[in-house]
């Protein structure tokens, strides 16, 4: 997820800062741009919350039972859809048979995820 990348890149940036006074000259443009991007678009602020989202029970059960792929999880985590329709438009595969019983189940998941964000 974007927020995890932000954590990794930030740490690396700090390390570079310790080594030299001008860390930006050491890094590539790709690194710089990516860092700006993930900082702008990361939804969760600290590593605790990220962990909570990753370990969200229905993700875990869905991951094990129905193989909700990691990238599907990441898209949901990155974009934080608010409605079921939105979520299905972003990740069409979540409505594949057997993943969730019905729309209510998806809605519950989205609601729980937004709660995690609220209480971080």
């Amino acid at each position, binding site marked *: 997820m974007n927020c995890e990348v932000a954590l*990794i*890149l930030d740490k690396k940036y700090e390390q570079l800062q310790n080594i030299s006074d001008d860390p930006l000259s050491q890094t590539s443009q790709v*690194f710089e741009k990516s860092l700006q991007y*993930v900082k702008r678009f990361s939804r969760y*602020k600290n590593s605790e919350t990220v962990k909570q989202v990753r370990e969200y029970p229905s993700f875990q059960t869905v991951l094990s039972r129905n193989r909700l792929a990691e990238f599907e999880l990441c*898209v949901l985590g990155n974009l934080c859809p608010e409605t079921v329709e939105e979520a299905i438009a972003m990740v069409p595969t979540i409505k594949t048979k057997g993943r969730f019983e019905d729309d209510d189940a998806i809605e519950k998941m989205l609601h729980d995820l937004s709660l995690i964000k609220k209480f971080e």
Partner: protein
Amino acid sequence: MFFHMVLERNMQLHPRYFGPHLQEKLKSKLVKDVEGTCSGKHGFVVAVTKVDNIGKGLIREGTGFVTFPVKYQCVVFRPFRGEILEAVVTLVNKMGFFAEAGPVNIFVSNHLIPDDMEFQSGDAPNYTTSDGSVKIQKDSEVRLKIIGVRVDAAEIVNSDAGLAGKKCFDHTFARNEHNLDNCPVEK
């Protein structure tokens, strides 16, 4: 989307570095060589996070260079067709607009911008809906769907994208109004 993955690379090292700090030298050369590069298969290599394993070197005849197979972990960014992501608008003109998602440049043609959005020229060119509630201009945040990816000779990925489907699009609108210059982006 960003990925964390293990890659392998054969590193050539000049004989002058053979000595006490060979491993360190190899690591810094790896970082210098691969960070910022782009390949069609893995996309952009953003950062090397860890060097897992440095294999046995093989001396090349004639040159004296030694080739080491190196296994390393890195963060890569690769856009996929059909993926929905967020981007920052960098340039708006009558053909459409350009946006940036990390290292990737994205072009959205005006054919793929909804019909009810009109191009407005002027100091700050933008696309505006008829009721003026939504504006796409420089520094706006948009949510879009990638419809094609191209890696060109300059090793910059260009993605052609359409604004994400109607349902997401309404949401795009909601976010769009938050211009970074004017107000803090809600997170």
